[in-house]
């Protein structure tokens, strides 16, 4: 079964970390992508780079910034293959954002 692990974190918390710790956290996250369970791992550029797109009356409208203006921003996701929810929760708990005040939302992927 496939699950998406969507990572929400507070960038301010991450930036407040000392340089060395930041590097360690980044390396830790990168290593997760190499885990056997990982199908893919995607890390997004900061929320300031976001553009929101809507189509209304046939016109494409653009606005600057992320969809929701909250302290926690969607920072990336991890697609994994796992036997059940308990295994996924263990994987999710290893994502650094989960212990730095962020949250990982776990959702099963619709099977095709």
């Amino acid at each position: 079964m496939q699950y998406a692990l969507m990572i929400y974190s507070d960038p301010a918390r991450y930036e407040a970390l000392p340089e060395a710790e930041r590097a360690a956290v980044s390396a830790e996250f990168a290593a997760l992508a190499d885990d056997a369970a990982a199908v893919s791992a995607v890390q997004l550029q900061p929320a300031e780079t976001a553009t929101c797109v809507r189509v209304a009356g046939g016109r494409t409208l653009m606005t600057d910034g992320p969809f929701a203006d909250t302290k926690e921003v969607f920072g990336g996701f991890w697609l994994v293959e796992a036997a059940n929810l308990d295994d996924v929760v263990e994987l999710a708990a290893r994502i650094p954002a989960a212990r730095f005040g962020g949250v990982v939302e776990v959702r099963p992927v619709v099977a095709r």
Partner: protein
Amino acid sequence: MLEEVFRVQWGRVLASLVGFLGDFDKAEEAAQEAFAIAAERWPATGVPANPGAWLVTTARNKAIDRIRRERTLAEKIHLLPVPEAVMDEFDETAIKDERLELIFTCCHPALPLDGQVALTLRALGGLETADIARAFLVSEETMKRRLSRAKAKIKATGIPFAVPGAHLLPDRLDAALAVIYLIYNEGYSGRVDLAAEAIRLGRVLTELMPDEPEAYGVLALMMIHHARRRARFSGDDLVLLEDQDRSLWDHARIAEGQAALDRAIALCGRGAYVVQAAIASLQTAEPIDWPQVAELYRRLAELTGSPVVELNRAVALAQAGDPAAALRTVDGLDLDGYLYFHSTRGELLRRLGRAEEAREAYHRALELATSIPERRFLTKRLEQL
């Protein structure tokens, strides 16, 4: 008589079917079918020697028949490990007790708490949806939705039907115990006695996990409290522990709770439920060793960090003869919105001869009281000042 057999067997039968079919709804359907056949046959043939095995076998066969009939599910037949079950050979020992797996599925923290509670009562307790609805004062429709949402989430998110591994077990056991204790604390209304139901579930859990002290702790706690419930009300009036008529206590039940507590302590249980059970047990003694009760509340406060526990510790200190120390403790607590904070302060102030302040505290408690017995109790206290 049949109803009792069904109640006893339901959890085991359903657990076995969920394990076999890997699907809650199908398992429930098959179980219901088997129970219906039994209800029809058993009055004439008598209850078989192993009713559980008979029900599981019948239900399995029904489920297999159904899957065969449903052509769209044809390919799934190949996934079923036991294609033919023989109806006349019942060996109960061959049917694994999978209720523990069922408990951990129903009490999975990924489910909403009200869903965990409802599903535990339905799947393990074998209660009817309508009765669960009535017990929680919601419509049957609402309860049906709650149950089907929980079952749908189990299926869609792959909540496992398994006993968690050793590294997950302590947290998950806590979650299961919390569900059982919550059911206990819902008390009872309507046809179903939730407190008795919770005790049944607690008993099942200790049978399935005979080395878990906290499981015995929660069972002991529920039993000792439950044993005193007839003495807790006089007509519609609340009766405080010290004023309770002890002849109304169920002493056999207390002894049973005591035995569960002894077992918990023998297993080196030091957790929150064990400490609470020990407190409840001390409170059945005559006279009550209040300094010891206060000491246990101190330990419980350390474990839980709860100001309500501190409030109880203060009550024990007062009972031990030091209302001034008790009041100091109470005044340090941030519990302004809590009824018992104010009623406790009222009582302590009364004992210290500060009637005016006591009156004020009781009035504040009365503002927060919602139940009629509570209001009556507080009004009486005010009159006595």
